[in-house]
């Protein structure tokens, strides 16, 4: 199946700092999503971004599908940004096993005041 690797696994930031999280995937994808899992376990949708660049407030994401990676940028980090960030992908339809999201292991972000 498709492999998804996220880096770094852990990240500690001072409040106000910027960061870049990376997601590499091993094959072409139909769908790529970034999620933030808050301390209560809820997965919050950040971006649906199989290709291109999107921005939402202090967050932005870029996916370069031809090179099989995506980046999530967090600017002016706040303590509420703490949690685990997951990248997840699904394959172009090819029969059984498609449409399921395959998740990376996540990046655990801690923002300290």
């Amino acid at each position, binding site marked *: 199946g498709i492999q998804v690797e996220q880096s770094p696994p852990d990240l500690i930031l001072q409040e106000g700092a910027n960061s870049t999280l990376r997601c590499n995937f091993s094959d072409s994808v139909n769908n790529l999503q970034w999620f933030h899992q808050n301390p209560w*376990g809820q997965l919050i949708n950040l971006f649906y971004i199989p290709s291109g660049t999107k921005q939402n407030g202090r967050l932005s994401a870029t996916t370069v599908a031809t090179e099989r990676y995506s980046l999530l940028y967090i600017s002016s980090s706040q303590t509420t940004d703490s949690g685990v960030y997951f990248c997840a992908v699904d394959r172009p339809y090819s029969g*059984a*096993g498609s*449409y399921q999201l395959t998740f990376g292991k996540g990046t655990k972000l801690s923002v300290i005041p």
Partner: protein
Amino acid sequence: GAGVSQTPSNKVTEKGKYVELRCDPISGHTALYWYRQSLGQGPEFLIYFQGTGAADDSGLPNDRFFAVRPEGSVSTLKIQRTERGDSAVYLCASSPGQGDEQYFGPGTRLTVT
């Protein structure tokens, strides 16, 4: 509008017992997915429904796990003869159609004692 809801939020059961976990998808979403998340890991796919039918159940770990979606809306994940290794957070997601952005519920934390 209302998001994906899951009940119960927590379930503690004894080894060998039967449990049912419920998922209410976003209204109008035809695709529904179940995932399982163990501590420190990303969610892992279990089963995917398109409408009433299970289009892909390749992630179910064994025949003790079964899921239904009889009217194409609410889904129930059923686990027979629970084992301690079944302890995890069970997540449900829905999307407008297959391959679209997936939205997750808050999960059911299952503990088998």
